[in-house]
């Protein structure tokens, strides 16, 4: 382990469920229920899970769009959760986010230039208009768009071009860490390939760190160095990506990988055989007791319904949260 850029300790984010008399709190959505992980300098770390697993909430909490309910986020030696609004400026400049749907993350009534100008003004990066224009021109070139796009509006751009603008906006403040929340899931594969290549090039050029959130396992396999698998607000397995796909240990990870519809013959070898893939993700308002995956798991027995397993390191860097893995290791392919 070398230089840790961002370290999350036992992060918790609950959303209140209101109802009844005077809209009292009658329950809570346990969107993120105690997760810990590190992101190293210039590392691409992946986060996969089904919808409702809380992966986007993790992303939004990391950039402080949401205020965490509990836990700590250490960034460059400071606990970000303790910072007041006035001191948050430094963090907001270092950490940026790119959202899933570029159609809704760009303001349709503002030109590209006006959209990209905002971070430069807020963080006092450029002094005057001509300097800002020069920087915006450079930013657009960085994402392989012609500076002539400056005066266009999002409606004149294709999905891929809009996502490039969203990436340029994130880059405007020279961040060291970017949360990418499903940046290509709204795009066609041939466009996705271009955006992924761009993101990788930018990562190398500026030594950026990414938290790459996606539900696309094949994509994760290609881009992330380390991957965490989330289910109902908790991490159930985390390992170097190569290791995770070669040797998935948690039944949930195996279910996910075996569900991917494959395109090429050679991918068949990666898929776990005879993996049961039943059931749906339960509601995070009322999660199952013990291991949250037990209602869908073929290995589940009594202990799984009672006790939440610990996240255990079974191999160097490979952590799994399952009662059955340590005793009953599935065959290693």
């Amino acid at each position, binding site marked *: 382990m070398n230089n840790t850029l961002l370290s999350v300790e036992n992060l918790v984010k609950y959303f209140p469920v209101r109802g009844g008399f005077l809209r009292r709190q009658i329950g809570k959505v346990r969107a993120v229920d105690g997760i810990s992980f590190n992101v190293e300098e210039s590392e691409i770390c992946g986060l996969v899970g*089904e*919808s409702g697993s809380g992966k986007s909430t993790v992303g939004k909490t990391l950039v402080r769009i949401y205020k965490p309910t509990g836990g700590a986020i250490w960034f460059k030696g400071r606990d970000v959760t303790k910072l007041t609004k006035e001191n948050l400026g430094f963090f907001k400049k270092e950490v940026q986010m790119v959202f899933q749907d570029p159609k809704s993350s760009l303001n349709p009534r503002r030109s590209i230039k006006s959209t990209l100008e905002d971070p430069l003004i807020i963080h006092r990066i450029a002094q005057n208009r001509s300097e800002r224009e020069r920087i915006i021109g450079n930013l657009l070139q960085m994402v392989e768009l012609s500076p002539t796009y400056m005066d266009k509006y999002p409606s004149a751009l*294709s*999905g*891929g071009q809009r996502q490039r603008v969203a990436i340029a906006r994130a880059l405007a403040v020279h961040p060291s860490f970017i949360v990418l929340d499903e940046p290509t899931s709204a795009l*066609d*594969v*041939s*466009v*996705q*390939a*271009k955006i*992924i*290549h761009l993101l990788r090039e930018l990562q190398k050029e500026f030594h950026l760190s990414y938290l790459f959130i996606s*539900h*696309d*396992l*094949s*994509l994760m*396999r*290609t*881009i992330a160095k380390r991957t965490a698998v989330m289910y109902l607000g908790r991490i159930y397995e985390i390992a170097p*990506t*190569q290791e995770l*796909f070669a040797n998935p240990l948690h039944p949930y990870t195996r*279910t*996910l*990988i*075996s*569900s*991917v*519809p*494959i*395109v*090429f*013959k*050679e*991918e068949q*070898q*990666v*898929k776990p055989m005879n993996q049961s*893939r*039943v059931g*749906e*993700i339960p509601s995070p308002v009322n999660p199952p007791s013990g291991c949250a995956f037990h209602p869908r798991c073929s290995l589940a027995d009594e202990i799984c319904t009672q006790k939440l397993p610990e996240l255990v390191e079974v191999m160097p860097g490979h952590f799994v949260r399952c009662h059955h893995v340590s005793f009953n290791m599935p065959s290693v392919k």
Partner: protein
Amino acid sequence: MGDKHILEIQDLHVYFRVYEGISYVIDGVSLYVGKGERVGLVGETGCGKTVTVKAVMGILKIPPATISSGEVYVDGRDILTMSPKELLQIKGTEISMIFQDPMSALNPVFTIGEQFYDVIRFSQQRFNDRENISRYRIRKKMITALEEVMLPDPVRIANSYPLELSGGMRQRVLIAMALVNNPKLLIADEPGTALDVTIQAQILDLMSKLVENKGISVLLITHNLGVIRETTERVYIMYGGQVVETAPTNILFDNPKHPYTQGLLSSVPRLTGSEFAEGIPGTIPDYIKAPSGCRFHPRCNYAMPICAQKKPPLTMIESGHYVACHFYAKPGGQDE
């Protein structure tokens, strides 16, 4: 004509009259689905997949759309020349459709049972006029259909409103509705793309099983190549309103010939983690000023002068494998 095929489209041309001019979207699409066959139609956003299917279902809005030429046969009958009344008899009973978004395909203000009732009732009125089956029989038929799609507690489901069900359950309900009248052809437009991979896999397994048992032909429209490989026997690749390549699915995926198909397949990230190509240069064409000849030529690495002048015909390069590319039509120009 077309007796062997449940669906046959011949040289379909569709254009739209829009503010900027005339948008020639579908440019001579021909395809067929054999009896009991599962066929895929693949293409990226804006390639004309949905317009093609809408033309088949007779739900294309005319105007702005105009079907300028072409024939569409369903079980040997030309549906483009049919009266709306005749067409209505075929829809919902001989051809069924599953739409992409299970959230919006169901009416939120009626229960599943009420919507089901309409679907079954509709087909009854149509055929055996005399045999006006009872509410009880309809309900029984519905419960069986819901059981077939592995929904737990079908009685409760029938009394629920769509918003009480999860996305996966809604998609199952839609499949049950589409199959309840035993159609001959099922058209599925991106089934499961709005769902998670685990749910999608369950839905596709289920659909394949039901369709096989009942001997229903399927036309599956999607941009997800993995779904195509796992569920279809034969596949058409569309680009810019033209079919550019067609072959049995495995042959096409293992040995793509058209430069567009090659570019598309090489852009797909793989579970094995091997490197993927940097997409296809350029963007999809503007249909108002559609490129002449082969519509892919401005983005093609192998483009020759002839590509801009003449539309390449679908040419057979091996048994069942057809490619519309001048590169293969020329003798001696086999592989790259």
